[in-house]
C-alpha cells in the first residue's frame, strides 16, 4: 500500500508543498487526486464535491489540473495545439457544427486561439507556438506543460517536480513563475518537490510524507524544526532498519 491514512486539507490560494523521501507515495497521492488510481478507502473532496470514483476527465472539468514528473506533452503536436487540447473541456463546438462551420464554431475557435496565444505569452513561448513540442528545449517544455494545465482553467494546479533537471538559474525562474501563477491568476497550487530550497522558498504550508503516511505538516519554519522530519531525511537508513 503506497499511501495510507493520509489527511490533507489545502487552503484556497495557497502554495502547498508535499515533500518526502523517495517512494514516500507523493506521486501516488497525486494520481489518486487526479483519478488515475482509485483509492480503496477514503474520500477526496473538492469544494464539497467527492472525487472518488470519477474518471480523470471529469476531475479536470471540476478544476484540478496537473503536470508530470517526467514531462508528458503531446510530442507530435505543436505548442499551441498542446494548449488548445487543454481547453477541450471548455469548448462547446458540436460535431455537426464543426462540419458545417457555423458562426458559433468560428467565433469559438478564434477565441480559443486568442486565449491559447495569451497563455503562451504568459509562459514566454509566444514565438514558438508552431514548433512541435518535442523539439522545444527542456525548460520550454516544462513551461508549456504548465500552460497546457492552465488552459483547463483549474482551481487547483498540481505540479509534480516542476524544477527537476534544472540548473539553479532556471530553478529560480521557475519559482518566480509559480509564485506569479498564484499571485496573478489566483490559482491554488500543490507542489511535489525534492529540492528543499524551492520548497522552503515558495510554499506557505508543507506536508511531509513518509511510507505513505503523513509525518508532519506546517509552515516552512515549523517543518525545518520538526525532529521527525529531520530523522526521516537524515536518518533514513537507520529508520528503515528499525522497521
Amino acid at each position, binding site marked *: 500500500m503506497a499511501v495510507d491514512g493520509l489527511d490533507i486539507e489545502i487552503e484556497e490560494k495557497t502554495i502547498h508543498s508535499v515533500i518526502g523521501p523517495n517512494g514516500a507515495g507523493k506521486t501516488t497521492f497525486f494520481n489518486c487526486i487526479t483519478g488515475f488510481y482509485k483509492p480503496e478507502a477514503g474520500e477526496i473532496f473538492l469544494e464539497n464535491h467527492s472525487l*472518488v*470514483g470519477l474518471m480523470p476527465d471529469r476531475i479536470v472539468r471540476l478544476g484540478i489540473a496537473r503536470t508530470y514528473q517526467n514531462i508528458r506533452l503531446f510530442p507530435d503536436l505543436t505548442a499551441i495545439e498542446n494548449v488548445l487540447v487543454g481547453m477541450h473541456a471548455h469548448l462547446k463546438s458540436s460535431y455537426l457544427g464543426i462540419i458545417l462551420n457555423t458562426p458559433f464554431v468560428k467565433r469559438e475557435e478564434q477565441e480559443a486561439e486568442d486565449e491559447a496565444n495569451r497563455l503562451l505569452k504568459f509562459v514566454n513561448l509566444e514565438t514558438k507556438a508552431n514548433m512541435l513540442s518535442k523539439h522545444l528545449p527542456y525548460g520550454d517544455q516544462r513551461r508549456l506543460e504548465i500552460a497546457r494545465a492552465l488552459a483547463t482553467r483549474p482551481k487547483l494546479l498540481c505540479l509534480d517536480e516542476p524544477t527537476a533537471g534544472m540548473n539553479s538559474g532556471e530553478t529560480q525562474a521557475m519559482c518566480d513563475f509559480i509564485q506569479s501563477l498564484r499571485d496573478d491568476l489566483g490559482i491554488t497550487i500543490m507542489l511535489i518537490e525534492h529540492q528543499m530550497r524551492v520548497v522552503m522558498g515558495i510554499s506557505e504550508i508543507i506536508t511531509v510524507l513518509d511510507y505513505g503516511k503523513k509525518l508532519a505538516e506546517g509552515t516552512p519554519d515549523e517543518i525545518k524544526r520538526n525532529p521527525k522530519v529531520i530523522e526521516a531525511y537524515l536518518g533514513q537508513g537507520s529508520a528503515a532498519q528499525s522497521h
Partner: protein
Amino acid sequence: MQTKFQRWKESITATDIVMWVIGFALLVLIIFGSILTLRAGRYTPVQWFDFVIYGLAQGSIYALVAMGYTLVYGVLRMINFAHSEVFMSGPFTAYYVAAYFYRSSLLESHPVICLIIVFIVSMSISTLIAFLLERIAYRPLRNAPRLIPLITAIGASFTLMYLFRGLYGTGFQAYPVWKIFDGKWALFQGLEIGKMQLFVIFAAALVMIALYMFIQRTRIGKAVRSVSEDKEAASLMGVDIDKTISITFIIGGAAAGAAGVLYALVFKQVFFMMGFIPGIKAFTAAVLGGIGNIPGAMLGGLLLGLLESIGPALFLDGYNVVAPYQLKDAIAFLVLVLVLIFRPTGLLGERLAVKKA
C-alpha cells in the same frame, strides 16, 4: 466509510454494463449450445477424445509459431508480421531435401536420420531468414513510431512470400510420407491416438520446453528477458542490445522452422502462401495468452487449437446450425474478443499491463 463493494459499484460505467450484458449473453448461448449438443448425444466419447487430440496437435503448432511472435513482441514491442513467412520459408526449402531423400529411397531405409536432417535444414533456413529480416528491415527502425515497423513487417512479409513464389513456383508441393508415422496406437477402451498426432504434440512440447528452459536458465536467456523488461536498464547493465535482439529473432525463427516441418508432416502440402493463415492464427494465440508472455503463447496456442477443433461441434451443433465448421474461425475470434473484453491484456498478460500504466 464506504465498503469496497460500494466503491466498486460506483466505478462502473455504462459501457462496462453493456459489455457484461453482451459477454454474459454470449456465454449463456455458448453454454446452452453445449448442453444441447451433449444431450443430443451425437458424438461418442471416443469422438470427443479425437477432437481433443486433433485440437492439441494443431494447437501445439500454433503455440510454436506464437512463441516467435511473443518473443519478438517482448523485446521490440512490435508485431512481426513477417513471422508467418519465416514459418513458411523453412519447410518449403526443406521440401526439396525431403523430396531428394524420397527419390533416392533414403527415406525408406533411414527415416529417422532423414527426419532429423529435414528438421535441421528447415530450422536453419527459418533462422537465417529471421536473422536477416531483423538486420535489414527492423534494426534501422528501432526508435521509429510504433506503426512504422508494422508496415515494414507487412512489406517484408509480402517480399518474402513472393520471393519464394518466384523461386519455387506457385504449385503445391507434396511432402513425402514418413511411413513410421502411419497408423495409430490403441489406448484403453477403444481410444486410439494417431502416431503422427502424438509425435507432433510430443515434439512441439519438447521444443517449447527446451526454449523455455533456454530463456529461463541460460545467460543469453536472461539477457533476452532483461531486454524485454527494460531496454535501457539492460544496456546499462552491460547487455548487448543488438546481439540480444538478434538472438531473439534466431530463437523465434528456429521455433517457427520446427513448427513448419511438423505442419508439413501433418498436412503434407507446402506452398508459398502456407504461412499466412497459421501466422494470423498464431498471432491470435499469442494475444489470447497475453503477448510478450511465453507460457501465455503456449496456453493460447493450445486453447486456439482446441477451440477450432471442438468449438463448432460443441457450441453450434446443438442449435442445428448449417455447416458449423465454416464458422470455426468466427468462434475462435469471438472467444478471443471475449477474453480481451474481460482481460484486456490476454489470459496471462498481467505483467505488461501494469508496466504500461
